[in-house]
C-alpha cells in the first residue's frame, strides 16, 4: 500500500532443490518478490506449485537434507537470511517473522497450556519475566478475540475449537510484533463462517499493527478478499504478479485465466459446464528449460518448449512492482 518506502522483505532469485533418492526435485525456481510495510501479498497456486516451500525456505524451516536453498538472497532489513548463522536466524524467527500454519490442530503442542505456548516467544525473544509475559499473553488473546482471555491461558489446545486454535496460533505469531507475518493456508482447514471471522480479524490487526503479511492459499476467493498484490505460482515459478484488482480484471497468464474460469460463481451467471484445465501439474525433476505450463496450455507455441519464459512487465511500473507475467504468449497493453 504505502508507495516508495523501502521493502521490509526483499527476496531475489530464490532457488530450492530437494535431493531425493529418485533424483532432484526443483521445487522453487528463481522466485523474486518484495513486501512493503502494512501490505498483504497473496500467493496462489495448486499443491506442488512451490508456494509453501518458497516461504519455508525464507526462514530456514525446511529440513536439510533433503532440502537445499541453492541460490538467491532474502533481505530482511539489512541482513540476508540465507547467509546469517542458524542462531541468528532462530532469533529472527518468531521475533521479526511470525508464521501461522495451515493446521491449527497439529501446530500447537497438546501437552502445554496455550498460555505457556504464547509466553514462550515472549520470554525467549523479548526477555520478559513470567509476570510480564503472562500479562502480555492475556492481551494477545484478547486482541485475537478470545473471550475471558486470562482464564483461557490455562486451557490446553484440545479445549479450543478449530477457529479458536487458529486464533491462538495468530496470537503466538503476533507475540513479538513481527515485521512480517507469513500465513500458510491459515483458513483452509476452517469452515466458511469461521474463515470469515479470521479474515476480518487479520484485516483489523493489519490496520492496528501495520505489519506486512504474506498470505498463502489456493483459494482465489480469499485472495480477492484480503490481498493488495497477488503472486500466482505454477511449477515452482512465478507465473504472474499483479495488484489484486488488475489480476482479477485483466489476467494475462493462460494459467491464471483458466484458473479464474474453473471456479463456479456464487452469484450471477451460471455456466452449464465448468471450464477445465486438462492434464496434471508438472513433476519438477529437472531445472526448467521450458515453460512448466506448456503441456496444459491452450496457447502453447513452439517457443514454449524451447525456452522458459522470463517475467516481464506488462504495464509502466518497474518489474515486480506492477503487473508482470512469465509467458511467451501473454498479450501486452492495457486491454488484454
Amino acid at each position, binding site marked *: 500500500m504505502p508507495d516508495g518506502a523501502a521493502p521490509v522483505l526483499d527476496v531475489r532469485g530464490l532457488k530450492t532443490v530437494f535431493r531425493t533418492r529418485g533424483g532432484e526435485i526443483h521445487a522453487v525456481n528463481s522466485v523474486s518478490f518484495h513486501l512493503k510495510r502494512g501490505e498483504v501479498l497473496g500467493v496462489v497456486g495448486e499443491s506442488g506449485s512451490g508456494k509453501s516451500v518458497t516461504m519455508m525456505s525464507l526462514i530456514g524451516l525446511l529440513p536439510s537434507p533433503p532440502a537445499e536453498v541453492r541460490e538467491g538472497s532474502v533481505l530482511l532489513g539489512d541482513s540476508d537470511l540465507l547467509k546469517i548463522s542458524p542462531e541468528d536466524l532462530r532469533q529472527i524467527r518468531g521475533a521479526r517473522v511470525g508464521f501461522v500454519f495451515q493446521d491449527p490442530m497439529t501446530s500447537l503442542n497438546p501437552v502445554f497450556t496455550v498460555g505457556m505456548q504464547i509466553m514462550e516467544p515472549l520470554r525467549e525473544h523479548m526477555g520478559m519475566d513470567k509476570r510480564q509475559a503472562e500479562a502480555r499473553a492475556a492481551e494477545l488473546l484478547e486482541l485475537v478475540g478470545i473471550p475471558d482471555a486470562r482464564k483461557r491461558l490455562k486451557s490446553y489446545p484440545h479445549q479450543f475449537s478449530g477457529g479458536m486454535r487458529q486464533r491462538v496460533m495468530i496470537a503466538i505469531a503476533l507475540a513479538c510484533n513481527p515485521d512480517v507475518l507469513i500465513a500458510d493456508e491459515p483458513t483452509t482447514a476452517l469452515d466458511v463462517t469461521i474463515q*470469515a471471522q479470521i479474515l476480518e480479524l487479520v484485516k483489523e490487526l493489519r490496520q492496528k499493527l501495520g505489519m506486512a503479511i504474506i498470505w498463502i492459499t489456493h483459494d482465489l476467493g480469499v485472495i480477492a478478499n484480503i490481498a493488495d498484490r497477488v503472486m500466482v505460482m505454477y511449477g515452482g515459478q512465478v507465473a504472474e504478479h499483479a495488484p489484486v484488482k488488475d489480476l482479477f480484471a485483466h489476467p494475462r497468464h493462460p494459467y491464471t485465466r483458466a484458473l479464474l474460469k474453473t471456479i463456479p460463481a*456464487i452469484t450471477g451467471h451460471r455456466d452449464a459446464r465448468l471450464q477445465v484445465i486438462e492434464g496434471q501439474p508438472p513433476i519438477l525433476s529437472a531445472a526448467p528449460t521450458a515453460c512448466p505450463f506448456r503441456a496444459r496450455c491452450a496457447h502453447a507455441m513452439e517457443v514454449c518448449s524451447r525456452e522458459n519464459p522470463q517475467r516481464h512487465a506488462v504495464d509502466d511500473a518497474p518489474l515486480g512492482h506492477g503487473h508482470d507475467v512469465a509467458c511467451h504468449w501473454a498479450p501486452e497493453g492495457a486491454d488484454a
Partner: protein
Amino acid sequence: MRDLQSEPLVQVEDLKMHFPIYSGVLRRHTGDVKAVDGVSFTIQPGETLGLVGESGCGKSTVGRALLRLYEPTAGRVVIEGEDIATLDAEALRLKRPTMQMVFQDPQASLNPRMTLSAIIAEPMVEHSRMTADERQARVFELMDAVGLNRRFANRYPHEFSGGQRQRIGIARALALNPKFIVCDEPIAALDVSIQAQVVNLLEDLQDKLGLTYLFISHDLSMVRHIADRVAVMYLGRIAELSPRDALYDQPLHPYAEALLSAVNEPDPNRARRTRIILKGDVPSPANPPAGCSFCTRCPKVMDICHRDRPELAEVQPGRLVACHLYTAAGSTGASEVNEPPIQQGATQ
C-alpha cells in the same frame, strides 16, 4: 428430464442418528451426540440434491445413514419403495447395487494392495454372477467412461494422482449400474483445476446414465453449479431446503444467509462488501441449545427462538424453512414472507 411430479426415488422421513456417549467408571450411557436429529427430504429421479453445511453439522452422517453404513436411530429411508432402515441383512445386500457412494478421500477409500482393475471389479465379484472375462470387459468399459487409460488397469492406487484416484472411486461406484449415488465431499481433497474435471465427469455420467445424486459438500459455489435443489444443514437439522436459484438469490433462513455471505468471491470488488460475520462457534451436538439450534449465533434471534424449536415448513412454493421468522408464532405478518423480517427481531 426431471419430472417433479413423479414418485421420488429417495424419501427420507425424520431420520435420526444419535451416537451414545458412555462416561464414568461404569461406562454408563450418559447422553447422545445428536449428529442427525430429525431430517426429512425427498430426491426425484435424475435430480441432484446438494447438502451443505459446516463441519460437524451432520451432513456426512446423513449420507452414511442413508445407505445404512450406520444403523439409523430412528426414521425411514425409502429408496425405490423399500425402507432401507429396516431391511434385514440379506435384503439389504441385494439392495446395495442400486445405491452407491463416492467418498471424500480417494487415498483412504482405495485399498493400496489392490490393482485398479481389482478395485473396480470387486463389487461385481460380490454382487453379480459375471465371469472373470465379463468382469474385465466391464472394468475397461467403466475406465473408458470415467476417462482412465486402459493401460493403467494393473497399476496400484499410489501410482495415481488425487483426481485420477477419485475417477477410480467413481468407476467403482458405477460398476453395478446404481440409480442413486451419495457423493460425500468428492472434490474436497482435490486441487481447484482438478475439481472442475471431476464435477464435469459426474454431470456427464448423470446425463448419460440418468443417475440421482446426493451431493454433500461445504463448497457452496460448486453446489450452486451442480445441484438442482439445496438443503442447508445446521447442527443435525435442515435449516432451509430450497431450489438452487431461489436459495442463492435470496436465502430465507438467517443461517443460510450468513453462510452464503461468508463465501469469498473471486472478485476483489465484490469480496470486500459487508458480510454477515457470525459470532462464536457451532454448539456441541451433544448439548444443543434449547429451542432453535441456531439461536446462540443468530443475528435475528427473538425470544421465542430460545423456547420453541421451529419445524421445517413450506413458506414459499417449494421452499422449506425452519425458522420462527416465517411462522405465525414468530411474527404477526406470517403471510408477508417476502418482507425482510429483521424488524420483528430488532424491536424486542
